[in-house]
């Protein structure tokens, strides 16, 4: 029973949906963002692989879209480093080095460095992260890359009950909530950091923490701190998700979380909104235009009817006609076999958000 209170309805809280919502909101649209749950960004490190960017680098507007995304991330307090032309090798959760073009700042400085001794921190009882395994892997990997940087594992422990097993989530939540715990962590890191030029920790530095809070923490430790991604829910990906979601809320995007869109309302070539399967009765969210940023789910929402998009990212039906003039698709195409990659998600979200914004709106604040 909500309704015409928005200009643009964006469906999906992944990278494409966030970018689309932000792009439309920046163009003074009143935006509603609907999602069943978080997009896949929460499962990974939150970085953009170089292969995606290079693969897509010929796409027009890519640089502009990436610049927009980075500006959104900076304002959200989770700044990214990198750009569309360079790549770095960053440690993955398996102790490999992956080629990354763009990553959250906290992950960005973890590339192999000549002559740098890095300490990898484990926490007593922590599940799914082994500092010695990680150190061994990174030593071997960096040798094979002709880097003479070295890695050594060290374990820290805490006096308090950290739960059984200790999870990165638990430590990250304590980091957010408890100033005493942060002090304890600073002391523990200082104690093992002497003789090292860099500290790698698993994803534990807060689920909600901002770049400033982490910079202050790193300053207190007195040695540069980088994060290594961990298993899902990956704290670094989750942090990007949390920060971006609160940023969107702060710029006036209305969030509808927890229930799936059950129908996209199409009438005579116009999309009038979406129907959300809330308990009891559906909630009808009406908007001047709709962006579906639900990846492959978009196809089933449209009855599996579309195969391709036109120049303006609108789905075409089997006869080649535009299904709705105000409906835009951002995210993976239904019949594409390749993973379109995060770079394309950003680009598609950016374009769809802008197209939606230029299609009009009269509820802007």
């Amino acid at each position, binding site marked *: 029973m909500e309704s015409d209170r928005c200009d643009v309805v964006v469906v999906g809280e992944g990278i494409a949906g966030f970018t689309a919502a932000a792009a439309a909101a920046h163009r003074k649209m009143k935006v509603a963002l609907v999602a069943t749950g978080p997009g896949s960004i929460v499962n990974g490190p939150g970085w953009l692989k170089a292969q995606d960017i290079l693969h897509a680098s010929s796409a027009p507007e890519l640089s502009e879209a990436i610049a927009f995304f980075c500006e959104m991330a900076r304002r959200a307090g989770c700044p990214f480093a990198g750009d569309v032309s360079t790549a770095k090798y960053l440690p993955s959760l398996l102790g490999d080095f992956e080629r990354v073009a763009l990553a959250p700042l906290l992950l960005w400085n973890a590339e192999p460095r000549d002559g740098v001794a890095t300490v990898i921190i484990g926490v007593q009882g922590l599940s799914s992260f082994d500092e010695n395994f990680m150190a061994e892997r990174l030593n071997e990997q960096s040798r094979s890359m002709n880097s003479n940087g070295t890695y050594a594992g060290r374990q820290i422990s805490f006096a308090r009950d950290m739960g059984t097993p200790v999870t990165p989530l638990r430590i990250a939540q304590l980091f957010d909530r408890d100033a005493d715990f942060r002090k304890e962590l600073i002391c523990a890191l200082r104690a093992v950091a002497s003789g090292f030029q860099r500290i790698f920790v698993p994803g534990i530095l807060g689920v909600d923490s901002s770049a400033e809070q982490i910079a202050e923490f790193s300053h207190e430790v007195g040695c540069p701190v980088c994060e290594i991604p961990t298993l899902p829910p990956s704290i670094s990906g989750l942090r990007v998700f949390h920060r971006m979601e609160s940023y969107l809320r702060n710029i006036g995007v209305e969030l509808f979380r927890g229930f799936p869109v059950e129908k996209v309302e199409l009438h005579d070539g116009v999309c009038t909104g979406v129907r959300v399967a809330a*308990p*009891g009765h559906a909630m009808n969210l009406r908007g001047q235009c709709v962006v579906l940023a639900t990846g492959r789910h978009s196809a089933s929402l449209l009855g599996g009817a579309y195969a391709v998009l036109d120049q303006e990212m609108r789905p075409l039906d089997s006869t080649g006609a535009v299904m709705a003039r105000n409906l835009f698709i951002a995210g993976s195409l239904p019949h594409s076999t390749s993973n379109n990659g995060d770079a394309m998600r950003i680009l598609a979200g950016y374009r769809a958000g802008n197209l939606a914004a230029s299609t009009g709106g009269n509820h802007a604040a």
Partner: protein
Amino acid sequence: MRPDDLAIDNCLKCSLCNTVCPVLAADPRYPGPKRLGPELERLRREGISTDTEWVEYCLGCHRCDLSCPNQVNVSEMIARAKATHRKPLIRGLRDWWFARPGLLGKLTTILPALSNFALAMKSARYLMSKIMQITPQRTFPKYTRPDLRSPAMTGKARQRVVFFPGCFIRYNRPELGRVVIDLLERNGFSVEVASSECCGVPASANGDAAVARSLARANVRAMAAQVDSGLRIVTACSSCGHMLKTAFGGILDGDKKFAGAAREIASSTFDLAELLMAQADAGELNTNFQPADLRLAYHAPCHQKSQGIGRPWYHLLRMIPGVTVEDMDAGCCGMSGTYGFKQEKYAVSMEIGEQLFASIRAAQPQMVATECATCQMQIEHGTDFKAIHPAEILLHAYDRQSDAE
């Protein structure tokens, strides 16, 4: 959420439910929704005993359900495990009462003055903590004569609605019920008060599935005819609304006689603010608000979020000229109805609330608006700020007009 048994196969163990669980964040020993829900559920379905007292610590906030990308009904699995968990005698007795706020209300309001006197006595509270394991830290809400009646029909009403008051309004704050009726009447509705029972949330929360089921049946009987004739049901308590909208949590699903009517009730139930917001969208909300110089903090109760209706109160309050509203968005308050009254859960309840308390203290509002009665209690217990139902603020804005129309 997928309210079916196959939902368990949708669990990919991504742990996102764990990231939003208020209990897990407050107590590291809590196994978390992923473990207590889908993981143990697989074993329970194979008949392997996995009984653990931890299921008692689930708040029933439904945040896990809302966070799941695959719509697994995590909290429902925990609730079912809770219903078969055997409690120690004393806690069992205490929870027997906590599951029956309707009965408690009926008894205490025979002589409300005496009940309030007794419940406020230091010695009584000491005894309750010793004998019943009810925390002496909290005060009980005052009981009052249940005198909420359907108002007389007014001539110009356009639509008739049924108001489901719930136990708190019925036995503790009937005047809040009159505020709700007044708001509805000022917006063109005529109101009849449902002759309903407790919605059953406390029964479910205390693991008493049988009571929850019998209350659900009684409520279906009480309202089926009204709903059949096309009337909508209005709730002003978010937990009652949640219960009615989920067809009593699905507990009547297999019930041939009642399931259909329960679903009818679910689809006909509207939160008060949801209904008023629909009026606003149709251009039919009475917006004769007098300006008020008021800085509010708004806390959305968990059972408001679980209704999937957005933030109607947040938007309605902001329509009053001069009122600023800051959405705290600081998670669960930790009270969860009777949960916070339980001695063994008091500490974790307060630890959960600390996030919200800190946000409220930082915002320094003149008061806090939240539509759940026990959220209000928790906020007033954990901070120095007054917390009231947003309906009272909205009505107050009308009241100051030099009585229009």
